């Protein structure tokens, strides 16, 4: 899954220009996007070379996905619904495609909200 390189590039770019020197960067990976943490970390280590992030340390944390149905109010987790391999791959590219493939396990509606665990977030610690 070399899409991780594109995400790593986005993470590095987003940290450029932060003054004060970034020492530690927490990268939160939403379970829904199913990002391969090992590849992402490898890409981050490669892409940081020669940048002001050269000495920064990256820590990954996976945030479990939670959903809330807009129709019936039920809440559920990704493990509560089945996702096929092809669908998983599509959601990996654009997590909103979950609305094409997932349904509320209580009422069957595709009208739901991803409460948490969607995609990639970055939390830098400066100093």
């Amino acid at each position: 899954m070399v899409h991780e390189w594109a995400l790593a590039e986005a993470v590095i770019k987003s940290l450029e220009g932060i003054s004060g020197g970034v020492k530690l960067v927490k990268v939160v990976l939403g379970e829904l996007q199913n990002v391969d943490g090992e590849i992402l970390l490898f890409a981050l280590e490669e892409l940081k070379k020669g940048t002001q992030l050269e000495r920064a340390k990256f820590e990954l944390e996976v945030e479990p996905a939670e959903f809330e149905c807009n129709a019936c109010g039920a809440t559920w987790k990704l493990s509560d619904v089945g996702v096929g391999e092809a669908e998983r791959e599509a959601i990996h590219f654009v997590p909103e495609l979950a609305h094409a493939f997932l349904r509320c396990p209580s009422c069957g509606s595709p009208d739901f909200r991803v409460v948490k665990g969607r995609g990639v977030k970055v939390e830098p610690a400066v100093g």
Partner: protein
Amino acid sequence: MDPRLAVIPERLRGVSRIAVFCSGKGGVGKTLLASLTALIAARRGVKVGLLDLDFNGPSSHVVLGASGASPREERGVVPPEVSGVKLMSLALFASEAPLPLRGADATDALLELLAVTRWGDLDLLVVDAPPGTGDELLDTVRFLKRSEAVVVTTPSKLSLSVVARLVRLLRDVRTPVLGLIENMGRGDAKAAAEEWGVRYLGWVPYDPSVEEALGDPGKLLGTEVAAKLEEALRAAGLLR
């Protein structure tokens, strides 16, 4: 912190111009004209991409006959090339499944697509914008900062009254308007364009033969619609 915002300019670095085809209303032929613009440009040797942002009803792939095409992963997502046009659409991932996205989800989907799509070098990126003047259009011109708008209307008062508001909105958000193209018309919208101070690029006739040419780029390029549209694109400066 959202890492996607920082990488979008990088992804668009090799793109010379971005033409956003928009209309206040749905059903005026925006998708057909945007897709056909990309095909005409490709035929004239222009390096061109087509980005379908009508997430709820993507159909550019239908115009191009690209239902079997799929993007390739290579340090991001590389759009498939269909009849010389690099195409990116959620339909390439979602197939024909309905995609019910609310406003915030549409914004997220747009950001994600822009952050991962590797267009490479393009002379022109044609964007098929969603109908209306809501989140998706506002996000389109917000995140695609060099956008230039091509406004599509029919000669109907119903379309013109909405397009009048769209033109004002585009000015308010500082998006340059290249001009107005009248679809399924005979020149009747020219007066309205002049009244709004918008360049009238030309009209494209209603042509029943287009329906059967959908999905067949060769046939589409042979229609009168394509010939008239090419004139309008030259007037807009999008083709030489």
